[in-house]
């Protein structure tokens, strides 16, 4: 059968939501292929359905059997993003997969928070190491009124002493790179666990 204009608009709307949901996390070629396949499924089902007495109800049954577009998209995006991060090992792919997981569950959000803290801490130490030769007097152990208050960069002020020296650069570099490597390893271990969970939870 051929759909009426309103039926056609309903199908287009479904595919639009699917495409938008997939586009946030997947490469354009994968999105286009997935949308094309789901459209083929809908067209096939529509061709065999009986439009009488109510085309709209018949079409809604087809779309309900398929599942909501966001649910279909979730099946693609979560696993593909995790897979890409694990296969390529790229930091951007890893961060994208972590971000996606953080938006899905509370446990994912907490894990992502821990991992982002690790990345930021590592990045901050590496940045301090890079800046240390240019401002050696401002980067080091910050002591306020004789009490250590932390490690980092601060302007000199009354009562504030910056304990610094040649050792700051290698120390920052080692701490930063260690934090980055450990966080990346932790992220990959976590994503491998997530991949196993996703595969055992696929629920058609």
């Amino acid at each position, binding site marked *: 059968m051929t759909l009426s204009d309103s039926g056609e608009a309903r199908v287009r709307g479904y595919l639009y939501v699917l495409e938008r949901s997939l586009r946030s996390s997947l490469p354009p070629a994968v999105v286009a292929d997935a949308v094309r396949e789901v459209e083929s499924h809908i067209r096939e089902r529509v061709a065999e359905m009986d439009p009488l007495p109510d085309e709209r109800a018949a079409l809604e049954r087809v779309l309900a059997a398929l599942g909501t577009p966001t649910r279909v998209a979730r*099946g693609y995006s979560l*696993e593909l993003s995790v*897979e890409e991060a694990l296969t390529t090992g790229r930091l951007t792919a890893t961060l994208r997969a972590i971000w996606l997981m953080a938006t899905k569950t509370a446990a994912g959000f907490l894990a992502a928070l821990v991992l982002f803290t690790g990345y930021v801490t590592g990045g901050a130490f590496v940045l301090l190491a890079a800046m240390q030769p240019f401002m050696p007097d401002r980067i080091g152990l910050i002591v306020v009124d004789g009490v250590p208050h932390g490690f980092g960069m601060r302007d000199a002020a009354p009562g504030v002493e910056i304990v610094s020296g040649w050792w700051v650069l290698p120390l920052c570099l080692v701490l930063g790179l260690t934090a980055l490597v450990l966080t990346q390893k932790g992220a990959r271990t976590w994503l491998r666990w997530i991949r196993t969970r996703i595969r055992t939870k696929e*629920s058609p």
Partner: protein
Amino acid sequence: MSLDVWNEQLRRGALEFAILLTLAPAARYGLEIIRHLESFTDLVITEGTIYPLLARLTRDGALRAEWSAAESPHPRKYYTLTSCGRRRLDEMTTHWQEFSAKIDRLVDASGGGR
């Protein structure tokens, strides 16, 4: 664990095996796979979630996917078992037969589960 959860886990665990079995005799497209599964099992509850699973099996190298516009007014994506997929299916079939035989023996030994 409730019976529903247990059933759900069985269904999830068997689905990948069922898809490979469906594709063993010939290439099929998505809806054809769903129809075949529906005619033998109740493994497919939401049709749309079969497609991510087919995409994953293709990515893993168990299936090969190819678009064809020859047989219908709209293009269909056909899936075929690769040699890797066929090996995987053989291994899964062996494991499944051994596993089900053991459980059957256990059920028989317990007096048919009653």
